[in-house]
């Protein structure tokens, strides 16, 4: 059923684990006994259709929600985050879909928002080190293969893909050990999605573990090392890439069979 069964080698080097986590909101069961284990340096795709519980799971990982039942472990230690800030301090960086970027502010100001580098003016007044902020932002983005026109251009002038990359690069720069990406390719075109996937690949090469949340198998399958499928708040299991084909993943997500039957129906109608 889960990862140990399919890959006998790595069974103890987990950087992040959810063990039998449930989350209830009043009478609603959002997550039921979900187990998710993230190996160090892997890209772990979390797949599920709308309403599968992806958002609740992300928010639990990010420290927004506390699990109602079950345990949350980081590097083998049980943790209990009461705010996203605490998760961030523990190296768990979540890039939500809204990206936490301010369109009217410049790239450099956005990159360092809340964590501005300072220097002392006249040896006493603390001011933002704007040159350092600008050059660091440009360098870090360039390392990730993104070339901004100017660190002083407003983020509003960047494309959706560039913004996604900026948010990811920022999380990596500020020492993320685990990067949680919430539907990073959802609103993007083919080429821009591709850029984001490249960035995920680069993050993995730097030894960062990634949880990649999506409902798009075509984006998840090429980049993922293992896959966890969610359906109606429950985990349908974790699979290594070698153990499952893309078609099987698609089938296991609610959409697979339904789309096939739709295709059959449409073709049948055309024939008739």
């Amino acid at each position, binding site marked *: 059923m889960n990862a140990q069964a399919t890959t006998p080698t790595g069974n103890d080097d987990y950087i992040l684990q959810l063990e039998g986590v449930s989350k209830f909101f009043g009478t609603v069961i959002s997550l039921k006994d979900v187990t998710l284990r993230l190996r160090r340096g892997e890209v772990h795709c979390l797949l599920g259709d709308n309403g599968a519980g992806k958002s609740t799971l992300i928010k639990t990982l990010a420290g927004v929600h506390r699990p109602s039942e079950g345990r949350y472990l980081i590097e083998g230690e049980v943790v209990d985050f009461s705010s996203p800030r605490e998760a961030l301090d523990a190296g768990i960086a979540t890039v939500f879909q809204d990206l*936490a*970027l301010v369109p*009217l502010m410049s790239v450099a100001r956005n990159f360092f928002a809340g*964590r*501005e580098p300072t220097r002392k003016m006249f040896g006493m007044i603390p001011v*933002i080190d*704007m040159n350092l902020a600008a050059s660091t932002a440009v360098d870090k983005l360039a390392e990730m293969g993104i070339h901004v026109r100017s660190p002083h251009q407003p983020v*509003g002038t960047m494309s959706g893909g560039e913004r996604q990359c900026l948010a990811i690069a920022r999380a990596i720069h500020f020492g993320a050990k685990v990067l949680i990406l919430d539907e990073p390719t959802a609103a993007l075109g083919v080429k821009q999605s*591709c850029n984001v996937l490249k960035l995920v690949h680069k993050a993995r090469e730097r030894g960062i573990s990634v949880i990649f949340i999506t409902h798009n198998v075509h984006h998840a399958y090429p980049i993922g090392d293992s896959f966890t499928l969610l359906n109606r708040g429950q985990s349908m299991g974790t699979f290594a890439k070698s153990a499952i084909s893309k078609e099987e993943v698609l089938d296991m997500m609610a959409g697979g069979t339904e789309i096939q039957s739709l295709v059959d129906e449409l073709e049948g109608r055309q024939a008739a």
Partner: protein
Amino acid sequence: MSTTTSDMSMTLAKTAPSTVLPSSGKPAAPGDERVRRISPWRALLNRPELGSIAATILVFVFFGVFAGDSGMFNLDGIMNWSQVAAYLGIIAVGACLLMIAGEFDLSLGSMIGFAGMVLAVPSMYFGWPMWLSALFAFAACMALGWLNGYLVMRTKLPSFIVTLAFMFILRGMTIVLSTQFAGSTIISGVGDKIAQDPVTHALFQGTTFQWLFTWLAHVGVISHLPSGEPVVAGLPKVLLWWAGVACSAGFVLSKTRFGNWIFTVGGDANAAKNVGVPVRRVKISLFVLTAFCACLFAVLQVSDVGSAASDRGLQKEFEAIIAAVIGGALLTGGYGSVLGACFGALIFGIVQIGISYTNVNSDWYRVVLGAMLLLAVLFNHYIRSRATTGK
């Protein structure tokens, strides 16, 4: 769909070798073919204060043509309108920072009247020394500013509603205080008390740099009265206060971490929270700053006029917001400039005083300002859409 995927895996495979070398990234700016040169002129166009600078020049030209020989641009004329601008400028700076952080304070005008009363009543009726009354007025106003901010943040109601309530509460309190103690809507004789108190007199009352003006009159740079005294005794202190408040606020906004936080909370409060900016603290401290500016306005005005009255500061909240908007601040927050707000206030001063130097009926003053506000908003909207789409 499947072709998309294979394209993607191929691209990933292709990029894999290059990522082994960490230095494979091209040098950022110079080699990028996507960088378009922006002329200094276009860069200037993207500044928030541009509209207000252009409008200021326009207003100067207008009055230069229609009132150039009327004495408006003589030294005493300049002192006249620059003081009006300075008073408004002080509160416009506070309102501007608060607007950039995405909030309003409609109680600003009422706060001016209230602060005047809080300054006058203890000193006139309780026998407090003037400096203590002034200190008390600042403390009371800033506490009320804090309360404004706290209620807005706590209830998550729009600041428009919360501060509208305080606009009425404070105006009412001002009238109550005034009639309770003085039996009328005005408390007079405060100016004399201030003149007797060395601290408040030195800080808020009258003019400074008299020696400079005397010397300038002596050498003939500025004109002097028949008695030999300069036509303007000195630099009004309100101008220095304006300069001080504006410079500090401008410095904080553009150079410090706190300034970056102001832009962030105004641009997107949720994003600000997610990156760890203390949204509540930033906004509340700006409400406190606005209240401080209102109190400073009141203390300077009472020192100058000599009395506290319950109708002081009427509609000043709107004038401050208009000055900030003419200066490029967006009503939705996240964008604006202190320099712009100061130019907005300057325009106010010139138009309000200047119109009486021309042959134009001064009743047109409000029409001009309203039209200017409308133009400024349209212009800002245009500039912002340019800035965010990069055209």
